[in-house]
């Protein structure tokens, strides 16, 4: 007894675990705070001689050529947000509240749109709707004898539609999960009082889920304003520069990284203030009917409207998935895409090129997979540790840790990349040129997804089990490793996947941070697009998406659809 007692005390000492949490906190600091601080520092130093000066801000925000892109970006993002919310809400309503046929199909296709990067969609839409050579335009000309087609993907409208097609899943996810919690009673009352279904939906259902709609709009806006690939592909020919393409130009020779930092900060200000605005709106208009308890949910009977509503709901997926993937596939199998699907144009050479022949492409594929896996692992571990530290209040100022982990949520990828470049392309810590530059950037960028997932999973865990282990003499760290982690296993795997998928397809930060030795698939795709090599680009894009969907399918098989439930909270 007397021998065991000191041992027990020793085991109980929380020192070791405190160390782990502190390390997690330090890493967060290094991933989030340092890069953002460096942007600030860089922005007030001259590019030429590194002297302290406000000149970058003056240059960035007085010259009309730099103000124009800001205006364009705001218009683009606002339009995308509106369209995405309309699509997302209509689809969510039809899937969650009605007896429309093919609800599971629509849900799956929406998820597939979410996984598809919009720059790949933009490329496919060039094949489909370039003014003269686009296949849809050519078909139109052939059918009607008109001198030219009516679609022009090289336009603001084109870019807005393409980005909206790939960001409506956010609104869908938020709104559908909210709708699933709304009981039908209030709708019933409205109907009994004589309102038709349209009026009921407009006056009762939608206001009930307004917070979710706002959240969806905000996410789409953030996506659109931070998007780099699609504007580079579609808006340069449309003679419109946006903030992200302008930032890219600042990194061309002679590069102006400090001017870029000054130019990027207001973008950050916009996203942060929108986020705060959303928080305020949510606080004001809260209806407690969305309680998750009680209430029966009866699907709306659409009657004769069942198929027309289905036709509406299948439209976004047709434009975001079916047409684009068909175009990419056809191009990847062509000798020259401009010749169209004619005999003699069929070849598997580009797949051979990407998977066997070309070392560069093969290395890029290997880099993408390994970097995304490493980023997902780092983000997941960090998220669990910091969410645990926050949830159990293990550190002084634990709440700040939570804010830090969520902060990258409002930092556009391109801004984060500029911060990483400013912070880690110079001594004392030179990550530029190494794989870590991309891995850490990806991990940081998608950390909020893992954090939100871990936090809500931890919240749903009862403390009893942990307390039991602690009472029996297990230390904090041991309890965490033996009790908490196993209980969270499922959520951890889900988080890992939800970081892995976007990391694999990330372009906007990779384009600034890669070097010849660390190029990933998206870098090669961007370079190929730069040189107009659309056939190998399509083959690589198809390979990237096959990897993604393959992984999704395996996860679905192993864990069922619940794995991706996280998405709705992230």
């Amino acid at each position, binding site marked *: 007894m007397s021998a065991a007692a000191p041992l027990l005390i020793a085991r109980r000492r929380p020192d070791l675990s405190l160390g782990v949490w502190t390390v997690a906190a330090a890493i967060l600091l290094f991933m989030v705070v340092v890069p953002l601080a460096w942007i600030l520092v860089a922005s007030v130093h001259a590019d030429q001689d590194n002297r302290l000066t406000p000149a970058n801000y003056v240059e960035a925000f007085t010259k009309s050529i730099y103000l124009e892109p800001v205006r364009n970006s705001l218009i683009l993002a606002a339009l995308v947000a509106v369209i995405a919310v309309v699509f997302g809400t209509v689809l969510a309503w039809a899937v969650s509240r009605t007896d429309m046929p093919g609800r599971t199909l629509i849900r799956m296709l929406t998820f597939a749109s979410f996984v598809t990067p919009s720059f790949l969609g933009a490329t496919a839409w060039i094949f489909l709707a370039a*003014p003269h050579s686009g296949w849809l335009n050519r078909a139109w000309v052939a059918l009607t004898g008109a001198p030219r087609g009516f679609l022009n993907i090289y336009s603001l409208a084109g870019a807005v539609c393409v980005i909206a097609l790939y960001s409506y899943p956010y609104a869908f996810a938020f709104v559908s999960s909210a709708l699933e919690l709304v009981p039908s009673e209030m709708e019933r009352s409205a109907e009994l009082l004589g309102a038709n279904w349209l009026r009921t939906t407009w006056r009762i259902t939608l206001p009930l889920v307004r917070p979710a709609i706002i959240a969806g709009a905000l996410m789409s806006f953030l996506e659109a304003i931070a998007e780099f690939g699609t504007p580079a592909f579609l808006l*340069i020919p449309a003679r419109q520069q946006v903030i992200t393409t302008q930032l890219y130009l600042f*990194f061309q020779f002679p590069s102006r990284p400090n001017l870029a930092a000054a130019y990027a900060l207001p973008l950050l200000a916009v996203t942060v203030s929108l986020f705060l605005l959303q928080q305020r709106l949510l606080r004001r208009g809260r209806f407690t009917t969305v309680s998750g308890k009680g209430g029966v949910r009866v699907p709306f009977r659409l009657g004769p409207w069942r198929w027309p509503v289905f036709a509406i709901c299948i439209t976004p997926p047709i434009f975001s998935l079916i047409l684009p993937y068909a175009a990419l596939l056809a191009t990847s199998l062509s000798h020259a895409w401009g010749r169209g699907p004619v005999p003699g144009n069929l070849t598997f050479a580009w797949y051979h090129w990407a998977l066997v022949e070309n*070392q560069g492409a093969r290395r890029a594929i290997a880099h993408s997979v390994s970097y995304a896996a490493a980023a997902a692992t780092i983000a997941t571990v960090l998220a669990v540790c910091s969410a645990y530290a926050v949830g159990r209040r293990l550190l002084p100022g634990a709440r700040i840790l939570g804010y830090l982990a969520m902060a990258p949520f409002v930092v556009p990828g391109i801004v984060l990349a500029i911060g990483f470049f400013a912070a880690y392309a110079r001594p004392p810590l030179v990550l530029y040129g190494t794989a870590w530059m991309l891995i850490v950037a990806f991990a940081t960028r998608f950390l909020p997804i893992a954090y939100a997932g871990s936090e809500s999973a931890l919240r749903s865990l009862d403390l009893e089990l942990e307390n039991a282990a602690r009472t029996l003499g297990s230390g904090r760290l041991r309890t965490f490793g033996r009790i908490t982690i196993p209980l969270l296993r499922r959520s951890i795997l889900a988080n890992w996947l939800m970081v892995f998928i976007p990391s694999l397809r990330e372009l906007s930060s990779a384009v600034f941070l890669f070097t*010849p030795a660390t190029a990933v698939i998206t870098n090669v795709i961007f370079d190929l697009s730069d040189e107009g090599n659309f056939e190998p680009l399509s083959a690589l894009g198809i390979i990237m998406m096959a990897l993604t969907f393959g992984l999704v399918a395996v996860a679905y098989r192993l864990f069922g659809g619940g794995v991706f439930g996280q998405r709705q909270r992230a």
Partner: protein
Amino acid sequence: MMESAPHSDEVMPGGRTLSRRTVLGAGLGIVGQALLGADTGRRPAEAAAPADEAGLYAEAKKEGKVVWWTAHYQLNAAEAVRDAFVARYPGIEVQFIRQTAQVIYQRLTQNLKAGVRELDVFASTDEAHYTALKRQGVLAAYRPLGLGNLPQAFQNVDPDGTYHVGALGFVIINYNTTLTIPPQKWTDLLDPRWKDQITVGHPGFSGYVGNWVVAMWDKFGWDYFAKLAKNNPKIGRSINDTVTDIVSGERLVGAGSDGTSLDSRSRGNPVNIQFPADDAILIVSPVAVLKDAPHPNAARLLESFYYTKEYSLAMSKTSNYTLRADVPAPSGVPIDRVKWYRNKVERLEKGVPDAIAKWRETFGV
């Protein structure tokens, strides 16, 4: 051109070693650099080199390899040059990276900042990179063997001999072969009959386009672009976008590069080139040996190789201009018979940023 990522049987500078060195060099400062210097067997490239090929080869062979970063031009061209070099000089391994000029330049700049020495021969397509590097004093002055095989006009691009012509290319008029009579000169593109049919790149994204814009500006005045804008050209990013647009039928004529257009033609695509009567715009893509090259003799040997017949044959095989008049050019027009115009590098340094700003005013992008 097809591929942008490096070809790795050539073994790239390994990511891990590199990162360790980078961190070391940065962290330990001078001590770290001294250690690294010792580690890689430093011998400054300025020291006297054997003046004959056999002697240089013998020294280079002792070093065993050469690290070469090139933007000239497509991957298959770089591979053909590597193969020809290895065939002529067995026993020297060529580690190369084929990337766009901006990427290899930025990488080199970062290395210089961090004190990492890994590169021997730098071959970008932008002459301004070299004047900047020269000012920092990081290029070795060296007269490669066989430089005299170049046409006289190209022999002394840098009076101090720190860089030399490594590859030649032109901005010319490229067109879809459904056109029986292509535009004959740059000013023909201003004709309203080409409205909605022209494709060009962007000077902010492409060094070739920047060069072309400055040349047009100096030859015809900015008015040229004011008039061109009325014909509503499609503006892409890279100069190679013009080939895509022409081959796909999106547009009919462009201001493109000879190499990519002819390469596309060789694959059976409906594109051809026209040397404009009012001058093809000559783009000199230099090559230079680094002063701190870890393999100084192999570096010199590789630079000298540029002026051999094998090098020109490798370039010609991959649709690029040859450096020697005794190897026929793929365009059928020998190098000394092309009517060309070249921007002075001092003009480009100031001219390109100005041109980008004016371009923005005129074209809105």
